[in-house]
């Protein structure tokens, strides 16, 4: 069949594979740094979110609430567009950083909800026990609640990371050279003049990354659950 023959042509073509790997590099770069930024923002927002109500916390809480509402309530593509063409409309500004910030901020909103849910899922009795043993609020949170919460949020965060990696494919919209853009260029008239084949190969690349990530998450999960009796 022509389709499989064309895939063979693409996979054995050094130039095309080089283009795909270069695109893959950008995709991974954005994903990794955006995930880290997202985890950082998400953790901070989650901690602010579950903090006890007090006059000092009122403003930070409101800001976090607005942040989560706006970011979760608007499409990622539009957030990226606004970042690239208004906020970071500076000449020579690396688009990689624009993308990392846009995706990090977006991911942070989702991660914060995941972490908040994880912390809340730890039985209140744990906090009470910690306080009864004479630990202060902060130590209880850091030493008792969060370690148990992490175990609960790993699957949800893994889910978010997978979504993030695939969502980075929209950076081709602002003209960045990622895996999807590479596939598009290979498909253009001056190269293979067919989109289906390079897109399929690019899809396999995404699948491979996500599969690898799933595998890593499973290992982490298993180790965290080593002491569970289930």
């Amino acid at each position: 069949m022509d389709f499989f023959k064309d895939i063979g042509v693409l996979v054995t073509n050094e130039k095309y594979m080089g283009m795909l790997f270069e695109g893959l590099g950008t995709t991974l770069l954005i994903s990794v740094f955006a995930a880290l930024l997202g985890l950082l923002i998400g953790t901070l927002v989650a901690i602010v979110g579950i903090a006890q109500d007090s006059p000092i916390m009122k403003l930070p809480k409101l800001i976090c609430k607005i942040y989560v509402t706006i970011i979760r309530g608007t499409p990622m593509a539009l957030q990226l567009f606004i970042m690239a063409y208004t906020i970071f409309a500076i000449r020579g500004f690396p688009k990689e950083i624009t993308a990392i910030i846009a995706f990090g901020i977006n991911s942070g909103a989702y991660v914060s909800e995941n972490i908040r849910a994880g912390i809340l899922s730890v039985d209140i009795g744990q906090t009470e026990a910690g306080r009864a043993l004479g630990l202060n609020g902060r130590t209880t949170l850091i030493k008792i609640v969060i370690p148990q919460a992490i175990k609960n949020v790993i699957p949800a965060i893994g889910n978010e990371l997978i979504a993030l990696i695939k969502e980075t494919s929209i950076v081709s919209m602002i003209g960045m050279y990622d895996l999807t853009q590479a596939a598009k260029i290979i498909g253009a008239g001056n190269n293979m003049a067919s989109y289906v084949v390079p897109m399929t190969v690019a899809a396999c690349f995404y699948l491979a990354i996500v599969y690898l990530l799933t595998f890593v998450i499973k290992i982490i999960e298993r180790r965290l659950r080593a002491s569970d009796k289930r």
Partner: protein
Amino acid sequence: MKKIITLILALTMLLGATLTLASCNQGGEIYVQTNAYFAPFEYFDGTEIVGVDVEIMEKVGDKMGKDIVWTHGDFGIIIDTVAEGKTADCGAAGITITPERADKVDFSKPYYTSIQYVILPADSDVATKTAGGVTYVVWEALEGKTVATQTDTTGWIYADAEIDCEGGVLYGTENTKHEAVDSADVASESLGSTIDVIIVDQLPAQYIVENSSKDFVCYPLYYTGKDGEPDAAVEEQYAIAVTKGNTELLDAINEVLDELLVKDENGQTEIEKMVMAHMGMN
């Protein structure tokens, strides 16, 4: 936990440092906004953007002693980006001069005259006409077809006016559909299945037909002459868009274009030769 936080903070600072460094190198460059899915004027060769517009702008850069920095993005944002002038000094993407666009940006001299073409599958039932040795398609022949154009290009502007807007040639005709797509290249993938016709400029049309593995043909698109007048092609002129007020750059571009538009002994201009070279036809 502490280690992780330290690591994340370190990475953030690293990011910040690159950011500051990157925003410092300003001055000796001309930033050009384009959409590199428009062969032979600009297209990707590997990760490099090449084409006729690229050669023109390189000459402008040589003249002014500045480097050219290319930015690729959607075609639709080029005019606005150039008008704002924040991230681009000019736009070179086979841009047709229209009054609406000329309100926002300054145009250089036109350097290429193009006409609108339609791409059809070889076995299409769209009727063609022949007059004076030229085979063409008139708008009326596209009735009942699904027409694809790249958003915001002149093909899209024409199709929008004739199909989607009141008073258009095909407005209100049954089953005539106008679909906006990312690029004519992408549309050619579904030509013959979900799309019947693609309207695009002459050279990209010929380029697509030549390079496609499928059996496509392309013809010029004509307006039917009113009151017995002959049918006429949909003609347009390409120019480079420059941010309003940047006369230094505009003058340099015009000077380069003047040089490139001088006809040689065979009556060919340098630009026509570039076009032929990029079409692989010399």
